[in-house]
């Protein structure tokens, strides 16, 4: 195809527009628009890495910052995370496996006997928004289910949430189970939730504890980096 300056210009503007649309669609939690725009990006030849970094991730960062300041609330955070996830599925499929942008894979859930999910959902949403692949198993998750799922998806991290002092013990059960089946070293185990403390995490042999969702994201990144290095 002969070189055309004007054509280049059109593509350049179009890419900017597409990135802007992706950003906006994540910020407004519009999954349909994210999906359509991600497909459009691929059709127009936008580099999927750039589409993720300058479109989806930029939008996710805005949402995370706004939630931290409580300029937006949980529903907006959750729909933005859903939109981000839908966009990532489309764009990541176009990136060679050895060039993955994923920071790591997390299997998380609220432990057996505990039906509280809000804190865990916030952490899962922020992890997704920050480039982790997250498998959220929901609430009241049996001990072995965490391990089966971690094996299945090749998880880096198992995240265990508990809100009640009476359900904390189930966090220890998952770690003890991992030890018993000889797989403790395979996974990073992070704990969190209402009654969880640093002392408790140390006592049961967890790798990490954080009091807030943003701290959990930071800690997850550090722990995965440390493990991989």
């Amino acid at each position, binding site marked *: 195809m002969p070189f055309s300056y004007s054509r280049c210009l059109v593509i350049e503007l179009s890419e900017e527009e597409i990135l802007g649309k992706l950003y906006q669609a994540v910020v407004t939690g519009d999954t349909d628009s994210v999906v359509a725009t991600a497909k459009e990006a691929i059709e127009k030849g936008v580099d999927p890495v750039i589409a993720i970094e300058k479109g989806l991730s930029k939008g996710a960062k805005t949402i995370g910052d706004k939630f931290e300041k409580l300029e937006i609330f949980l529903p907006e955070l959750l729909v933005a995370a859903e939109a981000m996830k839908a966009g990532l599925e489309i764009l990541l499929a176009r990136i060679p496996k050895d060039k993955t942008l994923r920071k790591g894979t997390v299997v998380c859930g609220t432990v057996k*006997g505990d039906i509280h999910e809000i804190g865990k959902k916030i952490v899962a949403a922020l992890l997704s928004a920050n480039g982790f692949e997250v498998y959220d198993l929901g609430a009241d998750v049996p001990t072995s289910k965490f391990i089966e799922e971690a094996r299945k998806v090749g998880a880096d991290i198992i995240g265990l949430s508990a809100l009640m002092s009476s*359900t*904390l*013990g*189930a966090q220890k059960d998952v770690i003890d189970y991992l030890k018993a089946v000889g797989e403790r070293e395979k996974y990073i185990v992070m704990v969190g939730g*209402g*009654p969880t403390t640093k002392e408790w995490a140390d006592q049961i042999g967890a790798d990490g504890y954080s009091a807030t969702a943003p701290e959990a994201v930071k800690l997850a990144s550090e722990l995965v980096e440390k493990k991989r290095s």
Partner: protein
Amino acid sequence: MVTFLDVMEKALTGRPCSERDYTLKTFAVRLREIVKEYDIKYDSSSPVSSDDSLADDIFKAAFDFFVEVGAYCRDTERIIKFEESEIKEGLRTAPARVVLGEGKDARALIPRKPEDKTPPWCFLGAGGGPVSTEEVFVSLLEGYASIPEVNSITTPALTSVSGLRIRPKSPLEALGAIRNAVLAREATRRVGRPGLPLMNTLATAESATSLAIALHPKYGLRTTDGYMIAIMDPMIVDFDRLNKVCAVLSFDAPVGACFDPLMGGYSGGPEGTAVANVAHHFLAALAYQASWHLPFPLHIKHVCSSTPELLWIISTSGQAISRNTRLLSLNLNYTAAGPLTEMCLYETAASVMAAVVSGLSIEALGVATNKYEDRMTPMEPKFSAEVANAVTGIKRNDANEIVKGLLAKYMDRIADPPLGQKYQECFDIARGRPSDKYAELYNKVKKELDDMGVKFQH
């Protein structure tokens, strides 16, 4: 009148819906709209509101919202809806008087109005906070039962049984619940107040099975105790919680429904959380047949009820309930700071004041966000009760000015609060009294509040 069987039928035949769609598409969206329709606006200059029309608008908005949106049953994955007439009848026929306790400690819990001169019911203790040992549990209970203003006890939660960490839904949980009942009753006997009602029975029983096991009469629980059962945020029930309701109603005891709409969560900002807090009362009255209500709205980040937004939520939703219904409602407060800190006492004073002048009674309290083992003493609920009695009958405007003064003393530390000391560190357990340092700090803060206009009775 809606019966418990009607509730089950609604749970089985209501509109099918995923929990995701109920919470994000129905609850959150409609709540946001209705707040706009009623033009409800948060006023940061009035953490304790004096606006009657705002309270009434919040009540009407909550009513419309509850009629339209209903509640969600997690087990049947269906929406439980009530007709307008059913809700009105439920509110009209809800108990306006419940006698709790026995002998000389029997008292009637009655409704209050804003600026009411009737002292609030003081439901004092640990709010289910975790304790490390049975010795600490009993010692704390003795301290709570010795507070002169106490009307009922809120126990801590045991975390282990004979050294074994409790596991949810296990026999260890059931054994823990039995010990919770037996030890709490024993502690009230030891201080000569065997008739005092326990009202968060049983903090250690998260599952319905454990509750039912510990209800056996030989463990000392009575139909004049209160039985607290949770509604999950936002307006979600499940079979395990409904089983607890079934057990308590069969025992012919009063159900108390507790609920904690999170500010910043599904309900959105202060306005939506105030409306949701009121709507949870309606759900409790109908689905749980609740005789009394325990709202404890919390800040999603700071997990306390002492920020200006939370005080506004307590005050406006409290007035919405107390002005428009006869429901028996007690606000539970959480502090960010821990024992032996001035901040903890300032925080609980602010929350208690917002509740009492708005027509609510109180449960006090969850100390240091209620998450740390043994980080509570009898001093914080004692202080809360003294403040509650001191501010009974004062004007909302006056309370607002005092509360603003208190907020100025602690809000700069709300994100990184001092955790203070553990029970064993700031209390002489053997002699049942605070350390000299804590007694000194306690009196100093009381003097500060007195200077601000809180006139203590002793």
